[in-house]
């Protein structure tokens, strides 16, 4: 506070204020200074609060409508869309404050040890300036299901392809009904005896999907004590005859063929040759089923449906934590900065490890700050609205519903002002105890 701005001379006043009148003029000044605030607070906060509480006991339409008692509150807990909203809000409260506080603490403590802490904090804090609505739009682009468009599924595909490669023939289908699908693979319906022949014809393979080096398909003839067969592309230009190996049809190399005995145990497996042929030898008499393993048909990673009904709430939670972690970090970092350094140093001198210092000294000393962050986040989470509208597509908004959104939709899409008021009052009651805590703190500090 510089002195320069306060040396300005007040305008000279000829008459000194008369004694006794000064106090009353001070009161009048107080009233005048407060008037605009009182008008705004009275008309926009106090009157509406009373009205909404009263309104919640009346029917859907009209200034008040018909008295319905607590029916609106009963509706709130029995209508499935509203119950979903309450459940989702409970999930939000259970997950978000804990994660936000944990991330904030982690980042605040770790950035103390790096030289580019300011840059790091700025980056983490940045989303706080952006609207929850724009954040929703941003993450909706990331969450698109097709791995070619949604960055998160693209990352998933990269990982998934590295762990389990997609099958060589992921789109192939059996060419005749002799092959049945079983456990993701295909199995020849009729059991075989040693000396038999297994013809495993496939179609639906695009020319570019045929494995390299494929040759004209073999025509197995059968051999005693063994089962011979061929896996081939049962299709040639013009069609050809299904189930028969013809000139111009290629064998499919590198396909894993499995032979199961009558108890469905895999007794042998083999890889096909370049002409698609395979052979199981040394078989004891009995019946066997030949088939192609499931790995051959493994589909490439198609992406998680983040915006679908099952994952939409977790998806929004992640985006929301992304916004608020910076808030927690900044508040906790300020708490850290105000912490007595000598206490930490003393603990270190006494031979405490960094983890012990963190667990036994830093966290207990920060407890008041951590609880402020936690409580603030509970309130924020209960009122969450914009990000759900922006992130959840119309089709899954009902699955992603939360209390504040349910209030809005009930009131301004459904125009049921009675139930809408009841939801608002319910929300009010939920934040009331939390904020009462805050007000007590305000009073203490004020």
């Amino acid at each position, binding site marked *: 506070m510089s002195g320069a701005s306060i040396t300005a001379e007040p305008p000279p006043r000829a008459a000194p*204020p008369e004694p006794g009148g000064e106090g009353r003029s001070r009161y009048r000044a107080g009233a005048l200074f407060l008037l605009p605030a009182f008008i705004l607070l009275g008309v926009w906060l106090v009157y509406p609060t009373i009205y909404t509480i009263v309104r919640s006991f009346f029917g859907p339409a009209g200034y008040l409508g018909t008295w319905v008692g607590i029916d609106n509150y009963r509706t709130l807990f029995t209508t499935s869309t509203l119950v979903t909203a309450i459940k989702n809000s409970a999930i939000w409260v259970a997950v978000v404050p804990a994660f936000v506080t944990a991330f904030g603490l982690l980042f605040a403590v770790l950035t103390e040890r790096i030289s580019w802490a300011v840059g790091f904090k700025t980056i983490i804090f940045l*989303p706080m300036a952006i609207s929850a609505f724009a954040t929703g739009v941003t993450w909706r682009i990331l969450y698109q299901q097709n791995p070619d*468009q949604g960055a998160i599924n693209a990352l998933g595909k990269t990982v998934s392809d590295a762990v389990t490669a997609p099958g060589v023939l992921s789109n192939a289908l059996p060419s005749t009904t002799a092959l049945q699908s079983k456990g993701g693979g295909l199995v020849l319906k009729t059991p075989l005896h040693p000396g038999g022949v297994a013809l495993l014809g496939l179609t639906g393979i695009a020319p570019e999907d045929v494995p390299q080096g494929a040759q004209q398909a073999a025509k197995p003839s059968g051999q005693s004590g063994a089962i011979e067969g061929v896996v081939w592309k049962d299709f040639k230009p013009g069609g050809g005859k299904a189930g028969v190996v013809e000139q111009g049809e290629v064998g499919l190399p590198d396909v894993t063929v499995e032979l199961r005995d009558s108890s469905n145990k895999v007794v042998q497996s083999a890889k096909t040759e370049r002409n698609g042929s395979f052979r199981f030898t040394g078989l004891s008499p009995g019946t066997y089923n030949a088939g192609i393993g499931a790995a051959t048909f493994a589909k490439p990673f198609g992406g998680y449906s983040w915006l679908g009904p099952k994952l939409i709430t977790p998806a929004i939670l992640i985006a929301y934590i992304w916004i608020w972690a910076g808030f927690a970090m900044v*508040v906790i970092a300020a708490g850290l900065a105000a912490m007595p350094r000598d206490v930490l140093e003393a603990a270190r001198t006494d031979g405490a490890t960094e983890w012990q210092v963190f667990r036994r000294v830093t966290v207990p000393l920060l407890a008041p700050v951590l609880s402020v962050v936690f409580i603030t986040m509970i309130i924020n989470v209960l009122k969450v609205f914009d990000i759900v509208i*922006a992130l959840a597509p119309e089709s899954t908004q009902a699955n992603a519903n939360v209390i504040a959104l349910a209030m809005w939709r009930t009131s301004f899409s459904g125009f049921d002002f009675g139930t809408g008021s009841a939801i608002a009052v319910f929300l009010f009651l939920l934040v009331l105890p939390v904020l009462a805590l805050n007000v007590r703190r305000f009073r203490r500090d004020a």
Partner: protein
Amino acid sequence: MAATETVRLPAPARRDPMSAKILRGVGKLPLQIFLAVVALLWLVPTIGLFITSILPASEITTSGWWKIFAHPSLATFSNYSALFHNAGLTQAMKTTAYIAVGNTLLVVIVAALAGYAFAWLEFPGRDWIFIGVIALLVVPLQMALIPMFRLYDSFGIGGTVLSVILFHAAFGLPFAIFLLRNFFIGIPKDILESARIDGASELWIFLRLILPLGLPAIASLAIFQFLWTWNDLIVSLTFNVQPITVWINGQMRQFSSSIDIIAPAAFLSLVVPLVIFFAFQRYFVQGLLAGSVK
């Protein structure tokens, strides 16, 4: 606000030999890498939105935005120039600016007057009234949507920028009054007393002493109010006013086919908050801490 002014930690002033410094640096390498990865993860969404906004429509619908790193020549500003010629969007940007500026001015003026009264004027029940005002912080704005929707309707001001400004201002006031009152009360009493003895009116004291001295707190408040209203969706949506968030929301039904409009519009909507944030980061953080740590 003692805690609020030391967000950055001073670097420990130790004098170590170079070798020790290097050793410590190497020891921190896993930490440095971890934090670098985190920072990158935090940047990706915003970068993704920006890149999406500069890709031609045909590219966005067939491939991901990251392909631009392989084909930088795809970048185009045609989406933006199309938007600037979109009357709906330019009108929405103007509406957003009117709401944000109007609300900020109104809240700052009204809250400064009230904050001064609560800090330095004496009248019966002052502190109880102040607590009552703070208690209004508990009211979620959802409590006022239905009654104000009806009231605006009967007074015929629904759908106007003013209706949204007044609503935001009222809900911004409890925190604003709290913030300013607590700052004003820290102004040395002697200054005010001597001005009063010199016969200055309360208005003069307010305009010439309190406002200039309270500028840091007023700046924090103004930034918060500006961002809060700039970013709002629910209030404008309820009262049928169309700032940029509501305008984009109207395009969201056909998300994938309108992405060449939605992405640049969303990015435009966050450019102003980002500029404000970078320009006034200190006040922003201070206001945040005043609201939560105090």
